[in-house]
């Protein structure tokens, strides 16, 4: 039950925040433009965070860095992405590669 509460808190807060973020331009500020530096910085948030997520989820352990079969999954994902495969193929490739190594 505790976990469901946490999930709903995340969904509710993030949902409300996203609705506001998308609406603030058209509803409130209509037509005004963001300074170029701010616009540039906002756009760079995605690559910085996505890369960090990959690194932490693949190499992160309990307060330390760990090398394990997740690296194989990452390799498969990188190969599939380099081949411009659709997202679902990249995901399945990573999952299958990791599962195979785990089964060995």
């Amino acid at each position, binding site marked *: 039950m505790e976990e469901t509460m946490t999930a709903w808190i995340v*969904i509710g807060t993030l949902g409300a925040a996203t609705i506001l973020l998308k609406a603030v331009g058209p509803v409130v500020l209509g037509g005004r433009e963001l300074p170029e530096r701010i616009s540039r910085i906002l*756009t760079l948030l995605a690559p*910085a*965070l*996505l890369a960090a997520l990959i690194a932490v989820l693949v190499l992160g352990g309990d307060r330390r860095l760990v090398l394990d079969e997740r690296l194989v999954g990452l390799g498969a994902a990188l190969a599939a992405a380099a081949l411009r495969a659709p997202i679902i193929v990249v995901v399945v490739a990573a999952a299958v590669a990791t599962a195979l190594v785990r089964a060995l």
Partner: protein
Amino acid sequence: MAGLALPAAGFGLSFGALADATGLDAVQAGVMSATVFGGAAQFAAVSILEAAGGAAAAITAGILLSMRYAAIGLTVAPELRGPLWRRLLESQLIVDESWAVSTGPGGRVDGRKLVGAGLVLYTLWVTSSVLGVFGASLIGDPERLGLDAAFPAVFVALLAPQLRDRRALAASLLGVAIALSLVPIAPPGVPIIAASAGVLVGWRKP
């Protein structure tokens, strides 16, 4: 449009499956997809929950990954006309793909195209997210199936096209360096949020 529809459906199915593996149910996945309507933010938040990173980090990561939609919203604002309720609803259809499909040369946005593409993508996204939850419960044990490797794979697929831009590449490398250096010393979730400082590579004009 078909070129966007299939990947969106596949992406949504993946989200539903991973949400299920994290312990979310169909209603939660559906509501999340209906309100956040953004793959990167949704996957980031759910993956942080899955890794026991805490609600605060999950929310913050999701918000940071959605901040560019505020910038996009300002860009398309002149194209979304009409009463307030209509601008509010139509602004919710902003997502990377609907924006990309409706942006012409010189950066001009076609409001009708954005709304049209947005409606199709939104419907596909929410529906496939819910279906993904049901599909996942047919599959079995997530870790044995390597589904925990699926989250990083999603982020690889999302990040790869962006790396052609040198600044984006620099921001991602800096983000990785910050995050990994903090893993041994910071509570879960913090390394990822701190990585957003990687945007500082964009401080100076190109």
